[in-house]
């Protein structure tokens, strides 16, 4: 089953979800690690290059997911969910979409602050647009960090909620995102 139904996630959605999870967490760890590197570290140049490239690819993936939601609605929440659970899940889902996009835009503004384009693994380039904000790289850099941390906090809440549904509520919330809904 490739497409979502009313009660089940299709494989396309499931893959996009877990790919996003891996890239978001990977980018966060890579980002924290790369800013700690000494100038003479062998990865000092390549780590940020990979981080930038993956960030752009993640933006494309997120935009693709948002577009897909227009044509292929996600399954309805389980009927067993309480009202506050439905409300917070919607809030957390859309906040994560918003935060991930804002974080990527801020990252883009760091790397392109001097008019340089971002080369995505050498495959294609994303040109600079906004370059005239005073100390743009510094300001965007600081915000990029705080937005990324906030995003990761929400990712944590999202993951804890999934674990709660699986082990405490014993419902199929997590299982259906694994494609194993009975």
């Amino acid at each position, binding site marked *: 089953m490739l497409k979502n139904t009313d009660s089940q996630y299709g494989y396309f959605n499931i893959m996009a979800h877990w790919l996003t999870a891996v890239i978001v967490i990977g980018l966060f760890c890579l980002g924290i690690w790369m800013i700690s590197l000494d100038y003479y570290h062998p990865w000092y140049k390549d780590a940020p290059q990979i981080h930038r490239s993956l960030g752009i690819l993640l933006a494309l993936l997120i935009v693709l997911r948002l577009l897909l939601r227009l044509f292929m609605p996600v399954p309805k929440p389980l009927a067993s969910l309480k009202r506050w659970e439905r409300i917070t899940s919607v809030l957390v889902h859309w906040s994560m979409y918003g935060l991930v996009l804002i974080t990527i835009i801020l990252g883009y503004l760091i790397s392109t602050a*001097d008019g340089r384009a971002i080369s995505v693994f050498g495959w294609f380039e994303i040109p600079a647009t906004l370059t005239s904000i005073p100390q743009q790289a510094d300001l965007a850099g600081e915000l990029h960090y705080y937005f990324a941390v906030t995003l990761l906090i929400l990712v944590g809440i999202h993951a804890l909620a999934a674990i709660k549904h699986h082990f405490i509520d014993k419902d199929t919330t997590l299982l259906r995102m694994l494609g194993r809904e009975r």
Partner: protein
Amino acid sequence: MSKKTISPFLLATLFLVVGNATAADYVIDTEGAHASINFKFNHLGYSWLSGTYKTFSGNFKWDAAKPEATVINVEVDVNSLDSNHAERDKHIRSDDFLDVKKYPTAKFDSTSVTPIKDNKLLVKGNLTLHGVTKEIVIDARPVGEGEDPWGGYRAGFEGTVTLNTVDFGMPGFVPTNQVHLELLIEGVRQ
């Protein structure tokens, strides 16, 4: 009073007046960008990396006949550092190096100017950078002076000085810990 006693007195007065009139005040022409503060440092021991401070202001007193009476004061907006690579500038501005949030300005106030041979000047003064004030000596030279085509009068100088980043409380980024400053200064007489 006889004429004999008046004349030397008048002459002396005249000399003083003229002497004062030529020790003119100049404002560094940052408005027209006829001045720059450039830096370069060694990259990995293999090459030079250069950049500039885009925003600074200053003034000086200058009289070609009395170079030792020269006084110069310059204030630099350290934030305005530009090495033509935003991410590198961000790194140099960070607390790894210049810590511009804590120390947004650098300033130089001359304490003495000594003319030496070949029309050169040794400009001694206090440089405050990264919150540390140290005496430095700039090797300087007047480039030229005279009327400009627009009704003003300008005087220009060039100078170089090598700073040790460790002296100013910064880590040694480059193999040599040295930053070379090139000062190209043009002032407009007020």
